[in-house]
């Protein structure tokens, strides 16, 4: 089973789902040069958002800690700890800020 991201061109295979430890993330290099952050929660559900932390510019969101609040998963940036909702990319600590969220699936394809 592979983790796949939906890009404009279609589904893009990142890595085997087993490469991601539940509760943590990994970074992926996309064909257009962007960096995405992929996560698995403890139930094995996958999420993906842009890897760039908009508060510092550093490409680090994949290295943050996962959590949940009111049933929704978030990641806390490892630098200044702002939290981002993993489904929408919305920053929970600053209404004005959102990072791009990707559709993601655990699929058979390559």
């Amino acid at each position, binding site marked *: 089973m592979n983790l796949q991201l939906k890009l404009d061109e279609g589904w893009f295979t990142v*890595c085997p789902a087993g490469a991601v430890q539940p*509760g943590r993330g990994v970074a992926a290099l996309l064909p257009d*040069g962007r960096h995405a952050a992929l996560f698995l929660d403890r139930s094995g559900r996958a999420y993906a958002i842009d890897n760039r932390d908009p508060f510092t510019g550093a490409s*680090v969101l994949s*290295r*943050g800690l996962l*959590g*949940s609040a009111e049933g929704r998963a978030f990641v806390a940036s490892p630098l200044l700890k702002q939290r981002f909702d993993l489904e929408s990319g919305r920053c929970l*600590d600053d209404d004005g*800020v959102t990072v791009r969220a990707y559709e993601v699936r655990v699929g058979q394809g390559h």
Partner: protein
Amino acid sequence: MPDTLPTLLLVGHGMVGQRFLEALVERGVTRDHRVVVLCEEPRPAYDRVHLTSYFEGKGADELSLTPADFMHHNGIELHLGSPAEHIDRETRTVTARDGRTFAYDTLVLATGSYPFVPPVPGKDAEGCFVYRTIEDLEAIEAYAKSARSGAVVGGGLLGLEAAGALKNLGLDTRIVEFAPRLMPAQVDDGGGAALLRTIERMGLTVHTGAGTEAIVTGEAGRVSGMRLTDGSELPTDLVVFSAGVRPRDQLARECGLDVGERGGIKVDEECRTSDPAVFAIGECAQTVDGKVYGLVAPGYAMAEAAADAVAGFPGSFTGADMSTKLKLLGVDVASFGDAHGVSEGCLDVVYADSRSGTYKKLVIDPDGKLLGGVLVGDADAYGMLRPLTGSVPPVSPEQLVLPAGAGGPVKLGPDALPDDAVVCSCHNVTKGQICACGTLPEVKQCTKAGTGCGSCVKTILQLLPQSGDKGLCGCFGVTRAELYEIVKVKRITSYARLLDEHGRPEARGGEGCEICKPTVGSIIASLAPTIGADGYVLAGEQAALQDTNDHFLANMQRNGSYSIVPRIPGGEITPEKLIVIGEVARDYGLYTKITGGQRIDLFGARVDQLPGIWARLVDAGFESGHAYGKALRTVKSCVGQTWCRYGVQDSVRMAIDLELRYRGLRAPHKLKSAVSGCARECAEAQSKDFGVIATASGWNLYVGGNGGMTPRHADLLAQDLSDTELIRLIDRFLMFYIRTADRLERTASWLERLEGGLDHLRDVIVEDSLGLCDELESLMAAHVTGYRDEWAETLQDPERLSRFVSFVNAPGAPDPTVQFVAERDQMKPDLGALKPGTQVLIPEGALTVR
């Protein structure tokens, strides 16, 4: 977007300009307007109030008030380095210096002020400066390198701040003030006298009652001194003028807007000028009460009023409080309300103690209402008194000025404040609004209180519920100490199990959060040998709990790179090992620095380089220094008896023994220690969590010391201990702390909080009053035997090493955003590479960072 959208043009992007843009966004104005900003300075708005912290190492980026994505996200066009030069109100256009013309429907002027430089001969000589922008500070800093003395013209709020900064740059500093006392606008004569003593004690020289007649120049036209109106001459290499500011109203004058007699663009309650299409806000405006405010809080209130008017909401600015608190390090000065007692029939209550440089005055009206006051030397009460202004305080005025212990109920709690008392004057937020929020971050987000000068944060914290809920976080309703007991007694080694069995009902089955995960990770690590968990922090499920630093066994830096600190026990290192560190740093191009903890830090490694670097370090006999973990950091030492003529014990050997004993020990916060060879204390042991000082007959043990944000001198726990007694006591001390402290609580604040304080601690760990000592000792014994070096262990496991990549799908590719530029023969992060849209080169070719 249709070009029919009305255009709002803002001239000036300073503190108030930025607040105005935020207010527009909050009111939705940016959605139906094209918003254009002309900014004179080369960078977007920054925190001028904290300008001086630029000298304390805050870079321009840290001072920025403008979040990276703010303009882009809200569709605002910002033109940097592009001042407006001409306004044509007929055609409603503004011409910028580069010749471009911008049409507007609404024009907002937020041009601030310029520093006033008295017209004395020589004022333009090389070595004369003003103090307003980052560029000014850069110029002062550069010039100060070749100067030995400096003088500040003006002893007001800003002048004192500038003088403090010159002093910190190492200059012999004088202040020249025309008025008979310092801070003439804020304090009265008594306050001025107390302030003078404090400032002089800090090593600054003050000349009051003297004006500047001329700047004297020496060879090559550089400043060499100044001549004062009293005939005297002061030698000085550098002069900073801080003699007040003047509103920048030139543009407005030239286009015929009404301007006040003494400057300032006249505005009405909505901050509209004499032309209804033009607004003026901040320091460039003269408000309806006839004043030009030189503080940021009134400017913010004007920004809100003008944004209301633009959005069609009711709102007005009629005047503001002029409370101030000096930020100058080491001097407490505050004034608020009617500080000079000019209200009719008002009375003073004064307390003065010239020994301690304390002066406090409250101004009250005949009915006992507090009107204002001045506090010098001890401004602790400012946060409470300012909001009480305008009401009758619940205790008598003398109780409010007398020092603690000198009578009556001393501390007036914030409970005494009425709901409509303004607690944050920068953002005009009342106690009621603050109490409607639950936590400090919520207060900051919902009301902005505390995000200006910061002087109200202490009061806000007192106002927030020290709620009955002592729970660790949203996931656990118990404290860290209770969690520790649960984990220990039930031998729980799985976070998921702990959360599902002991979490708050609503959090069970969830992901947990960034607060409890590392806390539980640390508890499991502290107890590992005892509860049967793996002592290795990246084992199995434990890996998912660790903060990024523990997860990659290195400390993340601002650009996503990492630092590496090998352990150097006691600060003792062989030349061979020094050479290995040098070689590794050279081969990987790392920035190296001697740390404040007697070891060496290597900065700038990409995550994928960590294993290679550590392979070489481990090979040379180095271990992890845990600079990334809440764990033992260093045990510093002095050379001690071996070399030093005063030493009475072998402090280096003891430091190394202690460091090797406690290395790897995970704790609620980091742990630091030091050992000094005699009472001269060269290792600074009394500022450490546990510090040891040699005596002729053994060792003295000090505990609960702290440097950092809130320094605390350590307490002497026991005297003249033998080696064995010393180590036994430290074992107990550390394990008792680990067991009972809160998350991120250093030993200093833990000891402060501990009921019964030092005496209780002594009872428990020296007298064994709770019968705990055997257990504490055996917990430590288990740690000592179970210790393994994390890096050596990681290097042996290919699966774990596979996590050290920049990209999971391109393991060989480096992260192209981690870039460096040269500085002082080494390198530093290239923050330019982190901007969106930057082209960076990686071996495979050019990629665009998005």
